[in-house]
């Protein structure tokens, strides 16, 4: 009888609470029971917390993913960052107070993850960025080989093959250049100081990225098609 009662206590915490009332009547049983109560309480707390965050995953993954992919333009990287944000939210769940909206809270964690990513990109081998001066002669005229060839641009933006070529040209850019472009299209202002890049260098990178993209399109698309 004792064994089966213990079994009920462990698997069904509700039963345990009932048994807890019997404390005064049966000393030994109440001792087991109290232990089980405290165990089951903490367990149900973490289960609850797991349940809440899992619900958030189901509810907010889509919008958080959209938010991230717009900023980093890389599906797998966006997934990693979103997942990292959920893990961070799960681990610091105790800091979440129900006063704030979970989506707002998750977004703020995610924003930090995205900034960390960009910061890492710029920390790697900071090099001096050259201008586009190599395209020109000393007198400032175009070098023959660098004269822009004419482009046939009709219906270009509707052509999926062109978009493909364009994307592959973006992929070929050094990461810090393409990141600069992505940062430019973030809806909100980005603090460049926080990323550890100077404004001058940022504009130089944008300039280089544009020059490189134009050249890449010339070879990959316009000279072939």
């Amino acid at each position: 009888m004792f064994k089966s009662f213990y079994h009920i206590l462990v698997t069904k915490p509700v039963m345990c609470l009932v048994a807890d009332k019997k404390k005064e009547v049966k000393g030994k049983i109440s001792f087991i029971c109290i232990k089980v109560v405290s165990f089951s309480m903490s367990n149900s707390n973490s289960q609850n917390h797991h349940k809440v965050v899992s619900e958030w995953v189901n509810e907010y993954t889509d919008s958080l993913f959209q938010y991230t992919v717009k900023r980093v333009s890389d599906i797998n990287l966006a997934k990693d960052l979103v997942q990292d944000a959920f893990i961070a939210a799960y681990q610091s769940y105790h800091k979440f107070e129900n006063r704030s909206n979970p989506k707002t809270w998750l977004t703020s964690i995610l924003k930090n993850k995205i900034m960390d990513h960009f910061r890492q990109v710029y920390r790697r081998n900071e090099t001096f960025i050259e201008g586009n001066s190599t395209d020109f002669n000393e007198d400032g005229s175009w070098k023959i080989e660098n004269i822009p060839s004419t482009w046939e641009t009709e219906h270009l933006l509707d052509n999926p093959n062109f978009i493909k070529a364009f994307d592959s040209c973006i992929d070929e850019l050094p990461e810090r250049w393409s990141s600069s472009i992505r940062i430019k299209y973030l809806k909100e202002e980005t603090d460049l100081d926080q990323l550890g890049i100077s404004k001058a260098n940022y504009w130089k990178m944008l300039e280089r990225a544009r020059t490189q993209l134009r050249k890449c399109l010339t070879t990959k698309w316009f000279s072939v098609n």
Partner: protein
Amino acid sequence: MISCKRSAALVLKSQDLPLRRKEKIQLKLHTKMCAVCKTFEQQTNLVEEVLKQRLSTEKPEDLSTFKIETITKLSELN
């Protein structure tokens, strides 16, 4: 008149920063007379247009498996 090198630099600058009045006039004058730089300007503008379009389109993506993966990861943290 400004050189082609200078004109190309202004075209690139204009994509990210506002040009000064004087710079605008210099560029306009140059590209009116220099077909090569006019082409360069058009191509740079096109690149910008495509960039804008590419980087602001939302790609629909099926995230259902990803959600399950994330929840599984959370369970493993315990």
